[in-house]
């Protein structure tokens, strides 16, 4: 029987932290496996002898239908086992309805089910062959004829006027919210700005491509597939293939990055299963880097109009945030971009609204900090523009408008240290050295500027279960289908279990990423550590309680008769007051075959009493080459109020990883659509520019001491996403401070500032 919510164990060992394991910078426990190549990723499994290889053939039109498909040359190519198209694919469930149900990620996702082409690069055929090379060769031998749809739409700006109002937006949020009289307040505001920001499509591009190996045994299917949430993948695959849930097993013990793109299942997972069914042998498929641009999720292009009105002393009176973002005719994803501005600043008159623009592109979906990242650009650049209009320090403007409660829900914040983050950051960063006037600080050929922006991400808690087994030798095994996508889950969950059980960390083994293990929330929404960790805490509490009852009733134990509620696990011993017995002795006598505890909780309360988020302040210093407009980051500092830190090393890695990805959002990343056919143009990592080492010079992330009493029993806040939020805005504001050029079109590449640079050359 599992310990269920409420989420308050009798004793909270994480709170007490007697062993000091919580907050220790423990090295990654999976590090040695990774650096020696023994941590296997989906494509690397060789356990199955007769594995075959799949290669996806993508459409070469953006929208239309297949009028003829000739697979004969491919079928007769050497070592080819099968060519699967919509004409011969095994039966699948119909495509999910367009409007998302309770979860976008738990639904049927068929491929090769129709001659219709919905987007450029959509799979139109799957080759299965004895070798990868044979499969790839045969892919080039499939000949497809199409009828193009002349009504196809690919460009956001062109079709913005055809926007529609969605019923809701991602993360279960409302499309529109409002309070007070914005129009009146804005009209009468003493100082105001009305600006529109344009953000491009972006792709997650994890280092590990999306890859799956499918193995059928009778009507049971095992997928080795890099996924962020094992249970959703299992359920989506079962629904797509119309199998009972228990017939599908997902194995995803190691994942080479996700950033949201491995929360849904993608073409290769379904196609591997279909191909394996056809050839009656295992099939593995890895998407190529160019294929990943069409067949994994991207952050959608959006337009954001930001209006801010203030009194002369900088008190905000009106906020309006309107967002138009790309979605598709066959699937609705509306990024919750206007949600950021709902939480940040006080203002009595406000609205925050979303529209969708249906384009014939691949479906957009969650990418690191969906909503908060793009939303922070308009809000936080908008605040900078307002600060300029007010001739006010941008930090002081933010502090002036710090709300006393959540401006949207009017719930109290469970904890909010934004002002402290700004104060601490300003001091550490040397904010006082910021040039007061743009374009006035030079360092050789570099124009230098400083910028700041706020970061925010909600603190979610989702239902999760875990089992913890103690063997008679005193070693613990933690089991949950939680994933580690490079974040450090193995490590921090080891720490939670070790501290809870009073064991050293090397006595704890964590098993993850297998749907046969207790179901967790997985990795996404920065809820992983809190959700799975809380379940582990509860499982350990249940173990403690079982052990307490055993020793209390056992006359041979020095703890006989002890009050069960006072028995604790500490330092490898079972203790109660002054009395103590070694855990190993207790177990070998009273539970020689080991003992298991289970923990399960139902996630956050349906009617929360607090508004819970991590807040932070992003500081950036950039240099802009006075001749060429090349923008280079000189320094970045992020300061976060993030509750208890389980492991400062993995926390810092998460935060600076997010900040580095934010450099991409601000300065380099853009998936360009060719409006003639809806293809992404720059489909490789030579031309889709993620930041490289040389782009990242001095970067630091600091977590302030903060107590988070309500969000979860661990007192933590997820850090996987907040690091990226606000970075693009801080960089844009720094570019303005350096040059006086306000760029509202992202990413900020040199061509966008070039025209505003001083005429240093006798042109």
């Amino acid at each position, binding site marked *: 029987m599992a310990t269920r919510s409420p989420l308050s164990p009798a004793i909270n060992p994480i709170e007490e932290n007697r062993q000091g394991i919580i907050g220790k910078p423990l090295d990654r426990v999976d590090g040695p496996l990774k650096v020696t190549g023994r941590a296997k990723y989906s494509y690397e499994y060789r356990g199955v002898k007769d594995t075959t290889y799949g290669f996806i053939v993508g459409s070469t039109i953006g929208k239309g239908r297949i009028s003829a498909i000739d697979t004969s040359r491919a079928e007769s190519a050497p070592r080819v086992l099968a060519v699967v198209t919509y004409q011969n694919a095994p039966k699948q469930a119909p495509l999910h309805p367009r409007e998302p149900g309770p979860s976008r990620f738990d639904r049927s996702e068929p491929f090769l089910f129709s001659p219709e082409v919905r987007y450029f690069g959509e799979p139109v055929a799957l080759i299965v062959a004895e070798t990868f090379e044979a499969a790839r*060769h045969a892919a080039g031998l499939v000949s497809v004829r199409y009828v193009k749809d002349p009504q196809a739409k690919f460009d956001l700006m062109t079709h913005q006027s055809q926007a529609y109002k969605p019923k809701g937006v991602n993360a279960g949020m409302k499309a529109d919210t409002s309070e007070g009289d914005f129009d009146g307040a804005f009209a009468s505001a003493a100082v105001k700005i009305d600006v529109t920001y344009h953000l491009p499509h972006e792709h997650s591009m994890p280092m590990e491509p999306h890859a799956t190996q499918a193995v059928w045994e009778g009507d049971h299917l095992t997928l080795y597939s890099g996924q962020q949430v094992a249970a959703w993948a299992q359920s989506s695959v079962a629904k797509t293939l119309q199998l009972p849930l228990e017939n599908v097993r997902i194995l995803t013990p190691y994942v080479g990055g996700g950033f949201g793109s491995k929360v849904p299942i993608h073409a290769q997972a379904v196609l591997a299963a279909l191909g394996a069914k056809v050839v009656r042998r295992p099939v593995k498929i890895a998407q190529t880097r160019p294929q990943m641009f069409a067949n994994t999720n991207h952050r959608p292009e959006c337009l954001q109009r930001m209006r801010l009105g203030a009194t002369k002393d900088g008190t905000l009176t009106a906020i309006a945030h309107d967002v138009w973002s790309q979605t598709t005719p066959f699937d609705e994803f509306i990024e919750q971009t206007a949600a950021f501005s709902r939480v940040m600043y006080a203002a009595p008159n406000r609205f925050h609204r979303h529209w969708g623009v249906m384009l014939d592109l691949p479906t957009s979906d969650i990418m690191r900090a969906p909503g908060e990242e793009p939303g922070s650009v308009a809000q936080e650049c908008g605040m900078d523009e307002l600060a300029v209009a007010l001739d006010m320090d941008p930090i002081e403007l933010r502090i002036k408008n710090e709300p006393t409660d959540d401006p949207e829900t009017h719930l109290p914040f469970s904890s909010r240290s934004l002002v402290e983050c700004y104060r601490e950051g300003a001091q550490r960063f040397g904010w006082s050295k910021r040039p007061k006037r743009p374009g006035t600080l030079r360092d050789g050929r570099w124009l230098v500027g400083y910028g700041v922006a706020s970061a925010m991400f909600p603190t979610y808690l989702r239902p999760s279960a875990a089992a913890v087994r103690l063997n008679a030798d005193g070693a613990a095994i933690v089991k949950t289908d939680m994933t580690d996508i490079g974040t450090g889950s193995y490590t921090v969950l080891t720490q939670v279990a070790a501290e809870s059980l009073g064991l050293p960390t090397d006595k704890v083994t964590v098993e993850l990423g297998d749907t046969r293990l207790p179901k967790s929330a997985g990795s996404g929404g920065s809820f992983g550590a809190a959700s799975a960790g809380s379940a582990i805490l509860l499982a350990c509490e249940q173990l403690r309680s079982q052990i307490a009852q055993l020793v209390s009733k056992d006359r041979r134990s020095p703890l006989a008769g002890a009050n069960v509620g006072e028995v604790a696990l500490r330092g490898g011993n079972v203790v109660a007051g002054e009395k103590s017995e070694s855990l190993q002795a207790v177990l070998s006598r009273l539970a020689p075959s080991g003992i298991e505890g289970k923990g399960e909780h139902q996630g956050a309360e349906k009617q929360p009493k607090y508004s819970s988020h991590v807040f932070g302040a992003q500081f950036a210093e950039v240099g802009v080459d006075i001749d*060429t407009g090349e923008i280079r980051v000189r320094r970045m500092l992020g300061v976060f109020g993030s509750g208890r830190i389980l492991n400062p090393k993995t926390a810092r890695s998460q935060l600076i990883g997010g900040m580095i990805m934010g450099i991409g959002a601000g*300065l380099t990343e853009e998936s360009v659509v060719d409006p003639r056919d809806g293809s992404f*143009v*720059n489909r490789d990592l030579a031309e889709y520019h993620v930041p490289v080492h*040389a782009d990242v010079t001095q970067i630091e992330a600091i977590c302030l001491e903060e107590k988070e009493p309500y969000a979860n029993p661990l007192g933590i806040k997820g850090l996987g996403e907040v690091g990226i939020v606000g970075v693009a805005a801080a960089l844009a504001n720094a570019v303005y401070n350096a040059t006086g050029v306000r760029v509202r079109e992202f990413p900020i590449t*040199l061509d966008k500032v*070039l025209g505003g640079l001083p005429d240093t*050359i006798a*042109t």
Partner: protein
Amino acid sequence: MIPFTYERAADANSAAKAAAQPGAKFIAGGTNLLDLMKLEIERPAHLIDITRLPLRQIEAKDGGVRIGAQVPNSDLAAHPLIRDRYPVLSKALLAGASGQLRNKASTGGNLLQRTRCYYFYDTSKACNKREPASGCAALQGFNRIHAILGASDSCIAVHPSDMAVALTALEASIETMLPDGSKRTLPIGELHRLPGDTPHIETTLHPGELITAVVLPPPPPGNQTYRKVRDRASYAFALISVAAIVRVEAGRIRDSRIALGGVAHKPWRALDAERALRGKPASMESFANAARAALRSAKSYGGNDFKIPLAHRVLTRTLAEVAGIEGAA
């Protein structure tokens, strides 16, 4: 990828002979060719591996340097002779690609790498270079990285090499071996072609002709530099690059060598700019005039409009810096 056969060449002459057969191609580091083969942009039926040929020497010769065609880019960049006497070449090499790629990429292969035009890389798009007479998707497409000099209505692609830009300024020559065993030497300026209406023909090499060495003449007097402008700090192709060698005497420009990258279908020797500079005072005005001369025939295509003012600015500034003139700003 199309199936192909493979042989390892025993010597330069047999390699050239084998490569003269239809569908045959040399492979050295493979840093570009393998990618293109996977995408079926290159479809050789037969590969001749030349990596084991004895072409890895860097040797001083007649006051210059002879560089074997198989010398890896990283070895060349680090060689004391190059660093001391040809810093423009060392800098250009180190501005290109990544450490891993430079370890694999050869001197000869670098010269022959193919354009990074997005539409050349996408076999679903029209590209006269990939498929003659199919059209050019870049002309009306996303052409931010494309040519501003010497392009044609058939092709606006640019040559991606940094090394070749420096070699152009250094007036390097290319030694080759032909299938009949004869050798020839050609100036680097005659190796690459402008697109005209045959953009698929990129060099003047004959079938099977093997690059065996690159020869640098003695370095011209003057200061050398290489400046590369790009979208991120490393691992990005040049939007504009400048290789410049300038000799100033008594405040006047005695001589200069200027080549541009990222602007044309070949490394672009800016002879007009060199002529404009000769004998002029070493001043910002002279350098701006030279930049104007270099870009007189420049033409842009929408997405790359910014490249003309960018080229003007970076060329002017680079010349000023290499001449030791403090800028006006």
